[in-house]
Structures are given as structure tokens and as C-alpha cells.
């Protein structure tokens, strides 16, 4: 197998893998032409690297500080200053990348498949199944997501896992709607009829033929939603309902810094920059991905 451009861009691929790799290559080429999307991608990659290498990148411990060194302004030794317990804020922000990544990945893993399944089943079966599932979806869609997440956390109890569950519960309806709309466009297509006549079960058709086709638009939407998920998680942390101290979660760090906001502004503002940059990264990359994968949904 030779990885050349001609092989990748071949109009009549010989194997399925060649076709897939060619498709991925075309996608990457289209994305590369969008500088903003590349900036977004760079930010996301940076988040991944920082999260993976946090213990080696952070200059100090995220949990232990020297009290004599508390509330120091940004300096050469502490680039983002120190907090009320003398902990290095930069080190805490770096370790916080792990928590943020943990939250967005878990929310995506829970809510996207759930939404996909509900949407695909709804669109594939149609009739009363569709009406019932979409009724429930619409009810969830017309609720205020943040308030709903707050109420769920209130019942489940504060904590990072419960915050993830609460956000996931409020995030799936959008994906269900998208998957259903997508399914409706091809549910009476010949290839579905063909697998039906071959005797494939509904389960097989939905999981092997319907859901894969809904994937690209769902992935686009999940990427675009990441920013919102990060903000909601940080908001829950800020209210004291998400990650609990001493975990260096960015929202919780802002909340702790609130007490010193007027005199030691850096304690609360520094983690905020991290949130803004990472959210921006997902926004930019999601926009670029949408332009490439889903030209219909492009905003002008």
C-alpha cells in the first residue's frame, strides 16, 4: 500500500479503506483552507496535550501551596499569580484542563449516542413511535437547559459526575432532532429497502445503516455544542454544584477568587481566560467542520 496523493484521491478506490482514507484526506484538505478552523484545531490539540502532560507541564503542585506565598500577583515565578492558599494558579489551570476534557468527553459520550438512537428510531419507524419520542424531545427542547441542569444537580447532589449526568440529560434532545431529520431524508431510499428485503432486522438496519449516515451532522453539532457544555460545567462549578474543592476546576476556581476580586483580580480572572480560549477553539473548529461536512447548515 502506497500512501500517495493520487492513491488517496483516486476516483475508483479498490478497497473500502482506500475510499475512507481518501474521504478523510479530502476533508482535511478542505479544512486546511479555513484558517480559523485550523486555529480552533490547534487550540483543541493544545488542550489535549496540556491535559495529557499536565503533571510534567505544571511548574508546581496544583493542590499544595505555601501559605506565606498567598495571593501573589503574576510574576516570573508564578505567571498567573497565586491563590488564597498560596497555590500556583498556572499549575491549577493546567491541571484543570484534565477536568474540562473529562467533562466534555463524558457528556458527548452519553448524550450523542442517546440522541442518535432516539432520533434514528423515531425517524425510521415513524407513526406513533415518532410522535411520542419527538413529543418528549420537544418538551425537553423547550426547557431552559441551564435551569434544568441546576435542578437535576440539586436532586442528585453536587459533584462532578452528577454535573456530567445533569448536562447530558439536557443535551441529548438536539441530537435526537438532527438524527431524526437526517433519517427522514433516506428512510424510504432504495438501499434501505434492499437491506430490508435481505431480511435484516430493524436493529441491524438502525445501527449499521441509519446511524452511520447521521453521524457527520451529529459530530458537527456536538463540536459546536462543546463550548456550551464547557460554559455550563464551569457555571455549575462556579455555583458550587460541579467539581468540589480542592479540584482545580476552572469554574470553581473563579468562584473561589470572587472573594478577592476587587484587590487580587488575577485569582478569578485567569481561569476565565482558559475557559474562553478553549470554548473559542471548539466554536471555530465546529464552524469549520460544519462548512466542510454539512454545507446545507452553513450560516451566511
Amino acid at each position, binding site marked *: 500500500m502506497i500512501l500517495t496523493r493520487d492513491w488517496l484521491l483516486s476516483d475508483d478506490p479498490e478497497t473500502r479503506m482506500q475510499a475512507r482514507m481518501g474521504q478523510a484526506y479530502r476533508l482535511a484538505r478542505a479544512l486546511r483552507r479555513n484558517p480559523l478552523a485550523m486555529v480552533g484545531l490547534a487550540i483543541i490539540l493544545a488542550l489535549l496535550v496540556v491535559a495529557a502532560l499536565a503533571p510534567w507541564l505544571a511548574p508546581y503542585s496544583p493542590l499544595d501551596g505555601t501559605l506565606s506565598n498567598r495571593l501573589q500577583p503574576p510574576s516570573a515565578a508564578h505567571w498567573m499569580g497565586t491563590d488564597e492558599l498560596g497555590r500556583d494558579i498556572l499549575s491549577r489551570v493546567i491541571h484543570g484542563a484534565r477536568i474540562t476534557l473529562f467533562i466534555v468527553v463524558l457528556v458527548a459520550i452519553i448524550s450523542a449516542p442517546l440522541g442518535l438512537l432516539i432520533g434514528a428510531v423515531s425517524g425510521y419507524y415513524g407513526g406513533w413511535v415518532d410522535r411520542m419520542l419527538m*413529543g*418528549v424531545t*420537544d*418538551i*425537553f427542547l*423547550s*426547557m*431552559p*437547559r*441551564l*435551569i*434544568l441542569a*441546576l*435542578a*437535576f*444537580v*440539586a*436532586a*442528585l447532589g453536587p459533584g462532578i459526575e452528577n454535573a456530567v449526568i445533569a448536562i447530558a440529560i439536557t443535551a441529548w434532545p438536539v441530537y435526537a432532532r438532527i438524527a431524526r431529520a437526517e433519517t427522514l431524508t433516506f428512510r424510504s431510499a432504495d438501499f434501505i429497502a434492499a437491506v430490508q428485503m435481505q431480511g435484516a432486522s430493524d436493529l441491524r438496519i438502525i445501527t449499521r445503516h441509519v446511524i452511520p449516515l447521521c453521524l457527520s451532522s451529529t459530530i458537527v453539532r456536538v463540536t459546536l455544542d462543546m*463550548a*456550551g457544555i464547557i*460554559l455550563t460545567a*464551569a*457555571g455549575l462549578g*462556579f*455555583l*458550587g*454544584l460541579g467539581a468540589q474543592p480542592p479540584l482545580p476546576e476552572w*469554574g470553581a476556581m*473563579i468562584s473561589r*477568587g*470572587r472573594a478577592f*476580586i*476587587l484587590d487580587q*483580580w488575577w485569582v*478569578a*480572572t485567569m481561569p*476565565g481566560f482558559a*475557559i*474562553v480560549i478553549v*470554548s*473559542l477553539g471548539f*466554536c*471555530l473548529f465546529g464552524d469549520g467542520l460544519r462548512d466542510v461536512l454539512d454545507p446545507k447548515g452553513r*450560516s*451566511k
Partner: protein
Amino acid sequence: MSQAVRPLPARIAPFGWALATIALTFLGLLAITFTIGRVVPIDPVLAVVGDRASRETYEAARLAMGIDDPLVFQFARYVGDVLRGDLGMSVSTGRPVIEDLARVFPATLELATLGILIGVLIGVPMGVIAAARQGTWIDQIVRVLALAGYAIPAFWLGLVGLVIFYAQLRWVGGPGRIGIFLDGTVPVRTGLLLIDSLLDGNWRAFRSAWSHVVLPATILGFFSLAYIARMTRSFMLEQLGQEFIITARVKGAHERIIIWRHAFRPIRVQLITVIGLSYAGLLEGSVMIETVFSWPGIGNYLTTALLNADMNAVLGATLVVGAVFIGINRGSDLLYRLLDPRART
């Protein structure tokens, strides 16, 4: 189906259906709050009375809640209670939740309304101009604002705003609704402090209230502005690409008339939905902003209740915000269908 000859019932029927959907959505909201209150907690009684309650209080609450009945009966009773305005007692304030909510709601309404005014009055013209002059600096600003609106946490922007405009520049009042010495000097009529102080002729109170509301309202307004400007821009671009615009240009119409009369008029109805959504979003966003600014509204009430594990208050506030949210959401949708003949079929 011809429009003109359809009998009246056929024209009203879709609206009846829409109203039924709204009613169903409200029922769904109740089902969700019911589930959160009764099904999710391991001990719902404890969640309501709090862990400091005595044995007698606990038993009384347990009896009153009818925990041993089937869930369907409990839900029916819950719906009945809510419809009669009974949201239970708040553990932390010791008053009925509905009274608490009535007291704090005007503060949120005042904040969100000022926010949406800022969003509409600045956002709509910005979006229109951005579309009319595509690619210019104002277009770029709208793009950047839209991105910022997605990426910046509201509570953080609130804190940064406090540092800059309150602590450093001293342009605005600090947290709270009014200066500490003026608190309670304005008789409550509408609950909207700006209006009450005007009605009272109390200029000092008005100025103080204004200086306190302007920063949180601007920050809320920023988020609605970002969204409204982006949507206006995209609606306008769609219109400006239409053939009737070319016709108007060929006829030699003035550019201002083309933009405001030919292109802007048709999108007004679409904007209603966007503004409605945005307003509903502000009510939600005010939860965070109110916490940052110690604004004694429904958001602050909700977060205080959350931290005190005051479940009746949490669910009551969720219910009210949710109901208003759904009302505005579906209401603007209905209005859209009423005003736009194209959406009626």
C-alpha cells in the same frame, strides 16, 4: 388548499392544536420537576424538610406528601397543587415558595427587560448594517461578537466588569439593586425599582438604582446582542440575495430604502422569534449574572435555595422560570405563525 375560501374553524384549528401542544409542554415541565423532586432523591421527604428537621416535622411532611400513594396519584395531586398556586413551603425563608417568587420576580424582570432592550436596540441595526456592508469592519465586529457570545462565561464577564467599571473606574454602582443607604426607601408598587422610584419622585433612589442595574443589564444585553445581531445579519443577507432587491436596484431605488423598506420589512416577523428566544435565554442567563451581582432576583433565590438544599424553593423557581421560558418560546412561535402568512400552510 385555497386560502380565501377556507371556513373559520379550519383557520383556527391549527392554533387550537398549537395551544394543546403548549399545554402538553407545561405538563411535561411539571412531570420533570415532579420527577426531580420525588423520584431522583433517595429520600424525597428529607430533601424537602432538610436534614435538621425534627422527627415530628419529618413525619408530618411525609404524611402531607403522601409518599406511600402510587406515583400517578402523587403526580395528579402535585399538578393540582401547582395549579392552585401551592408550591410548598421554603425551608430557608419559612414562607410559601409562591410568595417568595412573587417578591423576587420583578427584580429579574427588570434586569432581563433592560438587557433585551439593549440587545434589540443595538443588535438589530448592527446586524442590518453588517449585512448591507458585508466584509467591512462592522461586519467583522458582528462576527467577533457572535463568537464571544458563545465562548465567554457570563459570570466571568460579570466579575471582570465589576473589577473594571466598579472597582477601577467607579462608573457604576456595585452589587445589589440600590445603594445600601437608600435600601427600603422606595415604596413597592410594581416591584420594578426604576419605575417605583420614578413614581415616587425619588430622584436619588432612581439614580442609585440605575447605576446598579446598568452593568448587569449591559452584560446580559451583550449576550442577546451577539445573538440578535448575528441572526439579523443572516436574515438580511438572505433577503438581499433575492430577485426583488435586484429589481428595486434596477429601478434606481435609494440604497437606504432598499435596505430598510425592501429587505428589512420582510424579516421583522422572523426577528420576533429570535427576540423571543433571546429574551427567554436572558431569564435563564440572569441566574448566573444575579449570583455575581447579588441581584435579589429569581436566579439568586434559586442558587441560594440550591446551596441550602431547599428543594421546594428549587423546584418552584425551576417551574416558574421554565413556565415563562416555554411561554415566551411558544408564544413567539405562535405570533410568528399568526403574522407570517407563509408559515400558515
